[in-house]
C-alpha cells in the first residue's frame, strides 16, 4: 500500500529522465551490469593493491619521503621495500597504470548501464536508501576522481587542486570505503544476475536475436525498450576493444626498446635516439634548475654522518673501486626503461668511507633547489645492496647532465624519483 509520501512523490514526478520510459535501451539490465561489475570488482582490487605497493615503495616512514605525513592508520601495512628483483617496481607500477587505462572503458560502460538509477524518483523512500545513495556519490565521485587524477598525472597535466600523491592516496581510501560497502550490499545481486543468463549463449546472440532481459527488481530493464541496434555481445566486444586499444597504444612505454614506438599516444612513447644517454629523462636539468656550472669541476660530494664530513671530487670517486650494474628506471607514471649499464661507486663503500659502515638510512640531497624529491632517504637494504650505486657513467659513457651528471643514485627496484640525480650531499645515519 503506497504511503502518502509515495503518492505525493508520484504526483510531483518531473518529466524526462525521471520517467522510466525515458530509458529505452533494450540491452540495459542486471546481467550486463553484472558483467561489467565483475570485471571492475577484480580490476579495482588489483588497482588498489598495486597502488598500496607503490606507496610502500617510496618508504614513506623515512625522513623526507612522505608527502602524506598525515596518513595515520592508513599506512598500517608499510614494509621495507625490497631491492630484488630489480624490475619489481617497473612491473607493479607498469601494471597499475596499464590496468587503470584498461579499466576506463569498463567503468564508463558500468556507469552507462546504471545511469537511469541516478534519476530514480522519488530520490529516496527510506533513510536506508538515502544513506546508500550518499555512499554512491562517494563511489562514483571517488572512481572518476581517481581515474582523472591518475590520467592527468601521467600526462604531467598538473591541474588538480594540490599534490598528486596526497590527492590520489587519500582519494583512494575514500573511494575504497564506498567500494567495499557497495560490494557488500550488491555482491549477491551481482552473482544472481550473472547466473540469470549464460555468457556463452549471449556471445552467440546477434543483434537481430537480442531481446531485453526480463523485468528486474532494480528497474534497470526498460519498460519501453526500443529495437536493438547492437547485441550484448557487441557492447561487451566494444568495451573490450576500447581496453585493448588503450593498452596496445601504451604498453610500449613500460617495456621500452623497439616496442616504445608502438605507444603512439602514451606520454613516454617517443624514442629519443640510440646513444648511451638516449633513454627517457624524468626531469631535465633545465627544469630542475641545475646548471652545467654547478655540476662542473668545482662540484664536490659531501659525505656526512661520520666523525668528520668529507668532500670528494669526481676524480676521487672515479679512483674508488668501480662497479657496473644493469638496472632500469621506473617511474610512478608507469613508464620505464629497460636495464641500463650504470657504472660507479657502491653506496655501501661510500657508507664505509663516511665512517658509518652499518647505516640504517642515508639522506640524499640534490643540487636541485626545492621541488619534490630534491631530498630523499634510502633504507639500509637499499644502501647495502651490491648493485646500489652512486653512478658516474652509463652505458659506457659519461652521464649526461639530464641524467644526473656529475653523479646520481641508482638502486634496484627503487621508484625513479628516489634515484636522486645531481647528488650534492649524502648523510649516513647508523
Amino acid at each position, binding site marked *: 500500500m503506497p504511503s502518502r509520501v509515495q503518492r505525493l512523490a508520484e504526483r510531483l514526478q518531473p518529466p524526462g529522465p525521471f520517467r522510466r520510459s525515458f530509458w529505452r535501451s533494450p540491452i540495459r539490465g542486471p546481467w550486463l551490469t553484472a558483467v561489467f561489475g565483475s570485471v571492475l570488482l577484480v580490476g579495482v582490487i588489483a588497482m588498489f593493491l598495486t597502488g598500496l605497493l607503490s606507496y610502500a615503495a617510496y618508504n614513506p616512514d623515512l625522513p623526507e619521503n612522505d608527502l*602524506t605525513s*598525515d596518513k595515520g592508520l*592508513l599506512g598500517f601495512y608499510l614494509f621495507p621495500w625490497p631491492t630484488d628483483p630489480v624490475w619489481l617496481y617497473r612491473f607493479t607500477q607498469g601494471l597499475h597504470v596499464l590496468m587503470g*587505462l584498461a579499466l*576506463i572503458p569498463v567503468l*564508463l560502460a558500468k*556507469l*552507462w548501464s546504471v*545511469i537511469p538509477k*541516478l534519476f530514480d524518483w522519488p530520490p529516496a523512500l*527510506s*533513510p536506508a536508501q538515502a*544513506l*546508500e545513495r550518499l*555512499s554512491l*556519490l*562517494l563511489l*562514483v*565521485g*571517488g572512481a*572518476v*576522481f581517481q581515474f*582523472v587524477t591518475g590520467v*592527468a598525472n601521467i*600526462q*604531467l*597535466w598538473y591541474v*588538480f*587542486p*594540490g*599534490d598528486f600523491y*596526497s*590527492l590520489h592516496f*587519500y*582519494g583512494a*581510501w*575514500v573511494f*575504497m*570505503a564506498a567500494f*567495499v*560497502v557497495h560490494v*557488500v*550490499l550488491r555482491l549477491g545481486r551481482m552473482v544472481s544476475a550473472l547466473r540469470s543468463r549464460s555468457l556463452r549463449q549471449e556471445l552467440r546472440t546477434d543483434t537481430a536475436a537480442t531481446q531485453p532481459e526480463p523485468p528486474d527488481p532494480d528497474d534497470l530493464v526498460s519498460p519501453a525498450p526500443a529495437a536493438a*541496434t*547492437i547485441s550484448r555481445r*557487441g557492447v561487451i566486444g*566494444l568495451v573490450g576493444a*576500447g581496453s585493448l*586499444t*588503450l593498452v596496445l597504444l601504451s604498453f610500449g612505454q613500460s617495456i621500452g626498446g623497439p616496442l616504445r614506438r608502438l605507444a*603512439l*599516444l602514451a*606520454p613516454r612513447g*617517443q624514442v629519443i635516439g640510440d646513444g648511451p644517454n638516449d633513454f*627517457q*629523462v624524468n*626531469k*631535465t636539468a*633545465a*627544469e630542475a634548475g641545475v646548471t652545467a656550472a654547478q655540476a662542473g669541476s668545482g662540484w664536490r660530494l659531501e659525505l656526512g654522518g661520520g666523525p668528520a664530513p668529507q668532500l670528494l671530487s669526481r676524480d676521487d670517486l672515479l679512483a674508488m673501486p668501480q662497479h657496473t650494474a644493469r638496472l632500469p628506471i621506473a617511474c610512478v607514471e608507469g613508464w620505464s626503461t629497460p636495464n641500463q649499464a650504470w657504472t660507479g661507486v657502491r653506496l655501501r663503500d661510500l657508507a664505509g668511507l663516511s665512517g658509518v659502515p652499518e647505516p640504517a638510512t642515508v639522506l640524499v640531497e640534490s643540487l636541485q633547489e626545492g621541488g619534490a624529491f630534491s631530498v630523499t632517504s634510502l633504507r639500509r637494504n637499499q644502501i647495502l645492496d651490491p648493485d646500489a650505486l652512486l653512478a658516474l657513467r652509463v652505458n659506457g659513457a659519461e652521464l649526461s647532465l639530464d641524467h644526473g651528471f656529475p653523479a646520481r643514485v641508482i638502486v634496484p627496484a627503487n621508484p625513479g624519483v628516489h634515484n636522486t640525480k645531481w647528488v650534492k650531499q649524502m648523510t649516513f645515519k647508523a
Partner: protein
Amino acid sequence: MHRLLRWYGADPLHLIALIACFALAGYAGLKLLSGDLIGILVWFVGAAVIHDLVLFPLYAVADRSTQAVVRRRSVTTPRVPWVNYVRVPAMLSGLLLLVWFPLIFRLVGPYRATTGLSQEPYLGRWLAVTAFFFLVSAFAFALRLRRERSASH
C-alpha cells in the same frame, strides 16, 4: 528496535556497513580535504557531475543523432544496418581523445621542459589512428555488403 529498523528501511547489516563506510571515508576524507578544501570538494563532486550530466548526455545525444540519420536515410542506403560501423570507430577514437586530450591538444605546459620531448606529434598521431579505425570499419562494411549482395542473388 523493530520499529526503528522499519523506519530505517533495511536490515541492521545494511546500516552497520554504511556506518563503517562513512567512518573510513570520513577519516581519509578529512586528510584529503586538509589541503585546498573547496578545490578538492569541487573536484570530487564535480567528477561525478561531469560524468553523469555532461559526458553521458553528450555521447548519448551523439549516438541518438547518428541513429536518427540512419533511419532517415534508410530509403536510399543499403538495407544492411551500418550504424555500428560508425559507432565502433567513433567510440574508440573518442575514448583515446577522452584519455589523452591534454597531450593531443598540447595543454601540458611543462611537458617539453620536463621531458625534453615535444607534444607536437600527438595530434597527428591521434588523427592517424582515427583514420585507421574508420578505414578498417569501412573495409569491414564493404565486405559485409558484398556478402549480403551475393547471398541475395
